[in-house]
């Protein structure tokens, strides 16, 4: 069982916000879904391991890419060729 307090905490961690009006519904639905997920406790077998696969990497060299103008075009706030974000502190 997850409590409304835990759902509030998860919403904070995920930065999706939650208000009191929707908290009860979310908590109720979470418990139904998590109860269904609990069947995974019964699963037997081994964790998947990587076979016949390799990392796909390239040399770290500069290649043609999007222009600064194109990259900034969708940002709501820009300043001097940079994207302006909310303050972190």
């Amino acid at each position, binding site marked *: 069982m997850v409590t409304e307090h835990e759902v509030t905490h998860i919403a904070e961690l995920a930065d999706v916000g939650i208000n009191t009006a929707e908290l009860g519904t979310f908590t109720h639905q*979470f418990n139904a*879904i998590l109860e269904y*997920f609990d069947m995974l*406790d019964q699963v037997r077998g081994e964790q998947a391991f990587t076979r016949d696969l390799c990392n796909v990497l390239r040399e770290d060299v500069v290649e043609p890419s999007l222009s600064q103008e194109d990259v900034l075009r*969708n940002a*709501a*706030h820009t300043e001097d060729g940079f994207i302006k974000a*909310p303050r972190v502190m």
Partner: protein
Amino acid sequence: MEGHEICYEPDDRYNAFLTTCKKATYGPGKLTGVAVAIKDNISTRGIETTCASKILKGYIPPYDAHVVELLRQSGAAIVGKTNMDEFGMGTTTENSAFGPTLNPCDTARVPGGSSGGSAAAIAGGMVRMALGTDTGGSIRCPAAFCGIVGLKPTYGRVSRYGLIAYANSLEQIGPMGRSVTDVSTLMGVIAGYDRRDSTSYNKPYTHTPCADVKGLKVGIPGEYFGTGVDPKVATVVNTAIGRLEELGATTVPCSIPSMEYALAAYYVTCTCEASSNLARFDGVRYGPAADSKKSWHDAYREVRRAAFGTEVRRRIMLGTFALSSGYYGKYYAKAQVARENVKKDFARLFSEVDVIAGPTMPTVAFKLGEKSDPLSMYLSDILTVPVNLAGIPAISVPCGKVEGMPVGLQIMGRPFEDERVIDVAYAYEQVVT
């Protein structure tokens, strides 16, 4: 031919499109002048791409997805972007921020999802072919519900570069069309290697459908005809499988025991991946403006609460919870074991049979608003998610009707045998049309 254009102004009575291109240009090539619609989670340079979410309203991609580059090179006219469940999260296209798409076969019903707009645009006669994406059935479900053909290719066969990610390890872009031939033609354009997708596999598709199924062994898993599957749907699909037998295929009863845990494994995996993928939507680089005077978390939360739909927030939270300290072993790690078991079951079966057949969906299309409880909605994906967990190819082809609504026959194949599932669907299509 470069610079030709078609005038595209369809009567979109089904709300299949989020954006239409009134003047769509095209060039020479295999698909010259063919109107193709693109699901709105695939990036199109210069054409708004929203994933049916308010958080991407107004976003104009500065680049094309690999598949869109290939379509343009093939001469296709890209005529619009189709409606979908927000970020692909849904089975009905009711989770679009811009209103649901209606099913052209019965406008009181859903078209399926999440590629419901693409399916409705084809079934409603607005385009001949379209691209969809399939994370847990999102091409095959709307294909079945709208009575068209849809292929979920083998994982790796079509580049995901430019697909706005929801659950990377499960999703593939794939072709949808009125006929198996159209689906095969579109697959020929979009498949192939792309260095910008690290999971891309170098196996182009150059096949022409062949209707010969003589001697083919078709596995019929009991789980696809059991509890939760509408007996009337099962009967229609069994009749269709009978037609394959008349054509010379043999059927073999079989079992996929790991299916018991497949749906839980799928939803744990996709919500975990979603919680990570969707962290990028912050209202800073694109989307509605975050209040730059507020502190980071306050501004970020405000934008995301207002602009993400309920189902998207639910899945982000479920994934965050399942990956949180103390729960990882219980949910994510166990889901990966269950996923491996599904892969092993398919590998075992494909050493005995050539393809596996069953219904695409357990029922026909639901009424709009019929499924309001999230868990009961998730449960309707039970017959499509095993394919995504295993990364194998599967096609849905129309095989009859129940109460006037289309039913889809699902054919699943070995990894990289997309050609074979196409052939089986083509053979079936030839005898019934």
